[in-house]
């Protein structure tokens, strides 16, 4: 196996894991477009491979969040009933969609995520602050939107944090830090539900996945080390530029003469 190929994949994983830890966004959302655009993988293989990385990020981060009691395990598991069902739907529905359609859907999600980043005020990470008491409301809406988040995750190979965090924070009355931790907690199970289906279809390539996942683990460690050493605002803008560029490239590819078969 060519060493430079392994190194390139590990670096991609490292960047994805690092952004993931710094911004709470940027695992699958970077991995899928780069695997299709730079590594010329069919989008479904990129999605299957990305889902494995998403599980890695979720498990490693959730272990810490659960330990610190930031995760609302009960709320997470209730919403997981929806996200898992959605993920299975998404992983099945994806087989009916063409590569350009998927690329356009993915670009739309990239634009939405950059929009969220542009509006986001970096939350002051005051780790010791106690979490205010809260009462979860709007369960029916939560279940509905979670189903959608699961479907998007299963179709596009992303965690779906940009859907779940605003849902819990804005519509369900969950404090932001708990919403972030709980979203992360749900992502592993959601991604696993669809990852098994991709795996069986041959859309997970072990030789590509291993260096990527190892990079993601290392990137997550590096990211949490960097958290207190870099300006959050700066990292968010950098990620936004990356996402916009990837959206542009994916759209160009989808509408290009090759019709997404790059």
């Amino acid at each position, binding site marked *: *196996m*060519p*060493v430079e190929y*392994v190194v390139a994949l590990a670096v991609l994983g490292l960047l994805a894991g690092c952004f993931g830890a710094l911004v709470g966004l940027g695992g699958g959302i970077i991995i899928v477009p780069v695997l299709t655009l730079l590594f010329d993988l069919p989008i479904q293989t990129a999605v299957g491979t990305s889902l*494995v990385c998403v*599980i*890695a990020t*979720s*498990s*490693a981060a*959730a*272990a*810490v969040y*659960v*330990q610190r*009691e930031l995760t609302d*395990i*009960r709320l997470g*598991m*209730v919403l*997981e*009933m929806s996200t*898992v*069902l959605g*993920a*299975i739907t998404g*992983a099945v529905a994806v087989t009916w969609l063409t590569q350009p359609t998927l690329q356009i859907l993915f670009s739309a999600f990239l634009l939405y995520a950059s929009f969220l980043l542009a509006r986001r005020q970096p939350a002051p990470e005051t780790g010791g602050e106690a979490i205010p008491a809260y009462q979860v409301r709007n369960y029916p809406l939560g279940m509905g939107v979670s189903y959608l988040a699961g479907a998007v995750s299963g179709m596009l190979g992303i965690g779906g944090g940009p859907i779940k965090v605003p849902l819990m924070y804005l519509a369900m009355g969950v404090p932001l830090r708990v919403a972030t931790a709980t979203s992360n907690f749900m992502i*592993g*199970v959601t*991604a*696993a*539900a*669809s*990852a*098994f*289906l991709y*795996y*069986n*279809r*041959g*859309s*997970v*390539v*072990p*030789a*590509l*996945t*291993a*260096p990527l*996942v*190892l990079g993601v*683990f290392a990137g997550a460690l590096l990211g949490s080390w960097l958290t207190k050493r870099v300006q959050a605002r700066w990292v968010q803008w950098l990620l936004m530029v990356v996402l916009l560029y990837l959206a542009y490239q994916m759209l160009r590819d989808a509408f290009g003469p090759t019709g997404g078969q790059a």
Partner: protein
Amino acid sequence: MTTARATQAIAAVLRWGSYLSAGLLLLGMVLVLTTPDLPLQVGPAIPFAQLGEQLAHRNPYAVMQVGILLLLLTPVVRIATALVSFTVAGERRYALVSLVVLALILLSIWGAR
């Protein structure tokens, strides 16, 4: 929050699942890079049925694949842990929720055979 013990158990499953799979992936990676004349296998994963046999033949890609499967199974074990914890704590409603999630994910695994 769940009882402290359940929280600890769930955190431990997630942590050890990550460690173990990362270790196996690293081992697989080292084996792949150090085995001379190994063909580049960018094809799909080895089918489940042949995995044991390939491991016995010391196929480095099989080691990698076990690491990936372990990673995929970590969230499943996490749900099973929650199911046991909620059942032991007598929280029937959440035990049922865990059971539904577990059933759905097992359905997905069954569909993926």
